[in-house]
């Protein structure tokens, strides 16, 4: 009896301890969907400068209020060029105070947003880019844009189905699938020169390219051997290796930031699941998502801590995150195909309305989201890949 009580006490202490350390962990990373925003106020900025700054900060976990309630006060002016500063009213310290010149006013505001966020020891994302699939039925092409959807540029003009862009980390280059040659092939496209080459043109379909964080390898789904399986090869196309061998489905590979693992959507015993496999080959490991139905389209956060994915409910699709080692998954907002920003807290994803998608950005800790600006003439924008 007494022994049992002692054991119980020990277990409770143990459980309490682990709960406590978990709270510690969330302080240094993100508590998905459960973190209050940081309140800021803004004065002096007008028009596009004001709306641009509001967007930039909102999708990074800030919300706007009046000066009395704000944790940080942003003030400035935007007569032609931007001047702005951010002050912490509690200790009268100035975090940033700068004037900007060159490029566009939007770009100057993005630069200030990054300066402000970095002054709070965070990684700014306001000057990053995204690639995505833009559809004008029945064809689709690849586009790149600023992270907020502005300055869109069309990358392909294949006049067929082009999809699944994947941005080469730290390079102005993409991999994507194009049906240009009457076949689902993977292309490599250098965005600075416009030059491209067919990267994978194996028999059957060549799908879902995912380039490793160091750019040296590419994972993809091929049906060359008669099943849809996961393969990996070097960036020059050599050393092709088959990582799965199953008549079941494999789809949407992504890499761990250390380049050691490839995570993908699979099927085990007729249930869809997330798996990972060593990039060098080896045994598959299941990644638990605590009962989230039909997980697909995983993306591993650049800090290595989270895997975002799409869960499929009867009623629709949800963006979820789960610790990278598996565990309790958290359902955040309605949407599909998440792609992490370099800050490991904002996700780009597609929101479906009828048969069309709109791109949206989600700040995972606060669950704040906003649609990016749409391109005219394009009915659907989906499959975002964040340059990181």
């Amino acid at each position, binding site marked *: 009896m007494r022994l049992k009580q002692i054991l119980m006490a020990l277990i409770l202490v143990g459980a309490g301890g682990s709960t406590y350390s978990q709270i510690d962990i969330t302080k240094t990373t993100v508590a998905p969907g459960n973190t209050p925003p940081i309140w800021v106020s803004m004065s002096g900025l007008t028009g596009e400068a004001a709306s641009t700054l509001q967007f930039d900060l909102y999708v990074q976990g800030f919300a706007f209020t009046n000066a009395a309630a704000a944790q940080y006060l942003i003030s*400035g002016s935007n007569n032609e060029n931007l*001047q702005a500063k951010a002050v*912490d009213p509690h*200790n*009268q*310290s100035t975090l940033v105070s*700068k*004037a*900007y010149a060159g*490029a566009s006013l939007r770009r*100057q505001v993005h630069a200030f947003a990054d*300066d402000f966020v970095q002054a709070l020891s965070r990684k700014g994302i306001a000057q990053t880019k995204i690639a995505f*699939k833009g559809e004008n039925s*029945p064809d689709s092409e690849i586009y*790149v844009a600023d992270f907020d959807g502005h300055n869109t*540029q*069309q990358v*392909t003009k*294949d006049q067929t189905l082009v*999809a699944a862009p994947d941005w080469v980390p730290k390079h*102005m280059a993409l991999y994507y699938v194009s*049906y*240009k040659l009457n*076949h*689902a092939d993977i*292309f490599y*496209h250098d*965005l600075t020169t*416009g030059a*491209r*080459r*067919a*990267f*994978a*043109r*194996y*028999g059957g*379909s060549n*799908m*879902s390219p995912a380039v490793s964080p160091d750019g040296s390898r590419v994972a993809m789904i091929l*049906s*060359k*051997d*008669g*099943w*849809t399986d996961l393969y990996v090869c070097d960036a020059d*196309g050599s050393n*092709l*290796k*088959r990582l799965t061998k199953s*008549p079941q*489905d*494999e*789809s*949407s590979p992504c890499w761990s930031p250390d380049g050691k693992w490839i995570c993908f959507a699979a099927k085990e015993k007729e249930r869809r699941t997330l798996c990972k496999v060593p990039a060098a080959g080896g045994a598959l490991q299941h990644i638990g998502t605590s009962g989230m139905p039909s997980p*697909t*389209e995983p993306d591993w956060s650049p800090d290595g801590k989270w895997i975002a994915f799409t869960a499929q409910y009867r009623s629709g699709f949800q963006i979820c995150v789960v610790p990278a080692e598996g565990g309790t998954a958290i359902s955040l907002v309605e949407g599909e*195909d998440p792609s992490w920003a370099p800050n490991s807290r904002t996700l780009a994803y597609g929101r479906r309305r*009828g*048969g069309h998608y709109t791109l949206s950005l989600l700040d995972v800790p606060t669950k704040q989201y906003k649609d990016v600006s749409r391109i005219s003439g394009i009915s659907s924008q989906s499959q975002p890949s964040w340059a990181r």
Partner: protein
Amino acid sequence: MKLNKFTNLLVIGLVLCVAASGCKSKKPVGVTDLPAPRVGKVPDAGPGAPIKPDQGTTAVPGPSVPEGTPSNPANLHDGWIKDAEALKAQTVHFDFDSSVIKASEKPKVAAVADYLKANKGKAVLVEGNCDERGTEGYNMSLGERRALAVREELIGLGIGATEVDTISYGKDRPVDPGHDESAWKKNRRDDFIVLSPPAK
């Protein structure tokens, strides 16, 4: 702690500021000149040329192992003439999230096999498609598996592997743009495109 850190920053900032300029003005200092945008022009991609041949990494499986039949080289039927009408009546339909050929659909596959046997020298492209109730990434794989399932069935009926190509369109080529089961069941399908060698 936090206050200390900011006080320190403030002090350091002041010292630097005074050292640099005397710091009389309260206006922003140090104009940040922005570099040109990182993306320049993205020129037209052009046709996208060199074709990488299949390097043949895997051995052909032995007959006792139930494995997939290797797909045909991507350019095997380049330039062949496509006919979407000849086998239009044989479009095979699938259950939700399934690539299993239902018993009710097998006679259609048999009819395709009969057609190919009666038309020697022709080939067929099996186009796998999905309804919209799946993610885009997942549906690309599912569409390919639907095409591969019919390919295996045709091979089982005596058709040569080199006579059957596959392609997946995921959910991007619906025949019915509707958002209900009557549309979805039409869209979960394999279409057959007859391929004829180009005239010499």
